[in-house]
């Protein structure tokens, strides 16, 4: 039986960035087709797990899409405040990806 691993050991890119001032998007790009298959069929990257990982509600998730050609998963969610507004923590949204790193994948 295959041992569990974590997402960061299967991915060459895990990043976050604004997609416009009202959304933040997370890109996960897997190392190879096998890793992409493994992550997709694991059912660990779902709306529910994203909600738990990021402490957000289902209605805050805008997109969760697997894109085979790029061996990529894209997750887009609503920002808590529009980019650069009072109370902002991360104007570019570039450092919000961390909860994804250690997501366990069977």
């Amino acid at each position, binding site marked *: 039986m295959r041992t569990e691993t974590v997402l960061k050991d299967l991915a060459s890119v895990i990043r976050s960035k604004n997609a416009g*001032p009202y959304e933040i*998007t997370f890109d996960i790009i897997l190392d190879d087709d096998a890793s992409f298959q493994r992550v997709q069929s694991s059912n660990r990257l779902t709306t529910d797990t994203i909600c738990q990982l990021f*402490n957000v509600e289902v209605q805050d998730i805008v*997109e969760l899409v697997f894109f085979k050609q790029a061996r990529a998963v894209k997750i887009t969610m609503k920002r808590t405040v529009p980019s650069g507004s*009072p109370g902002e923590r991360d104007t570019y949204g570039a450092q919000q990806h961390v909860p994804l790193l250690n997501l366990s994948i069977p």
Partner: protein
Amino acid sequence: MSPQGMLGYGYPMESLENGLQEQPHAISVDAGSTDGGPHRLGKGVGGVSRYATKKDLKPLVLAAKRLNIPLFIGSCGGSGANCRVDWMMDILTELAEEEDLQLSVALIYADINQQWLLQKWEDDCVKPCGSAPPLTKEAITQSTALVGQMGVEPYLTVFNEKVDIIISGRTYDPVMTAALPLFYGMDPGLSWHMGKILECGAIAAEPGTAKDGMMGIIRDDHFLVRPLNPNRACTVQSVSAHTLYEKTHPYHLPGPGGMLDLAQCTFTQYDERTVRVDGSRFIPSSSYEIKIEGVRPVGYRTVLVAGVRDPIFIEQIDHVMEKVKMEVADYFPELKAKQASLHSLHYGQNGVMGEREITFGHPHELGIVIEVIAKTQELADSICAFVRSLLMHYDYEGRISTAGNLALPFSPPELSGGQVFTFSVYHTVQVESPLELFPIKKRTIGGRR
């Protein structure tokens, strides 16, 4: 050829020369973005200096003139507001005079009239873009700067007459690269997709950077992308990954006039440093929509930066900060009346992620940033100074360091940050003509050559 991801970021001269040897048909460069936040549009400032803009611009202007090819600069000066197009024109004029060059320049403006937007809103022609909230009358009337994101049509209009340079206000990023292929009747899907990849310079290469450039070669049924610098390479992964960059959806990319659909797109390694892209499709929309970006002022900011090293204080930071915020609000009625706001960031604890932080525990030292926003700079300064004195001497439980709680790196400790803005409009408006919002002016500047 796209020499860099953002005008003013710098690029290696060798890369530019490499690119020029391939005899490109145009040089395109992006000069703005909303990514840096609302203050650029609000204050009429850029994300890069005039110095860097001029330094980067000069070799591009000289090269374009030497090769007799056009130079396209979009979203001038950070926000693409009219004042920033004029700012770019001022730099170009200075360059033309210094280099004794004669340049014909088309300026395309993108400021949006508030009354026009209000009318469109009343006519129910406005929709939120992505996750923006529904637009309100107040959001429109309180906006102090509004720009529309132009599509390719103003560029195509300019192409009917020869100009050396186009400088445009807020422009959909791929336009500067897609415009010429579209003018010559190349496939729209391929043209737009190539524009999307090239607008960030060499970010789509490995190693990736916006401080270097990329060449795009478009043919009837595919296009090729290759970095200008031989030390970088485009790989299937670097290019396909870039397609996702800063977009809501991985393969549906809406823009002015239609949507780029990459669901059937394929990426193949053409040679060691070049990637071939096939199958990008453009689906024209039934109505033409322009994205409007607007900002409104929300007050003035003052910031305090402080360090804490005492472990007894660090353990109680959340409790102490809560008490401090209550005491400050008791002193300043503006806070309770929501005319001012007070935020604190605790670096070392959850400064970056806030409520989404997943790692808990007490760090050995803590960085505190206090942000106050109030209707005047003086009030923001006053509140922030009050927070500082309170935090400095707050008598928390078990305190043995009774001389002061904060290590303050700066004197004066508070930094006045000036006027603060927030995005107020990020909506699409249905228009009758793709040209109606974007006036074009032509000017000839400079000397004899």
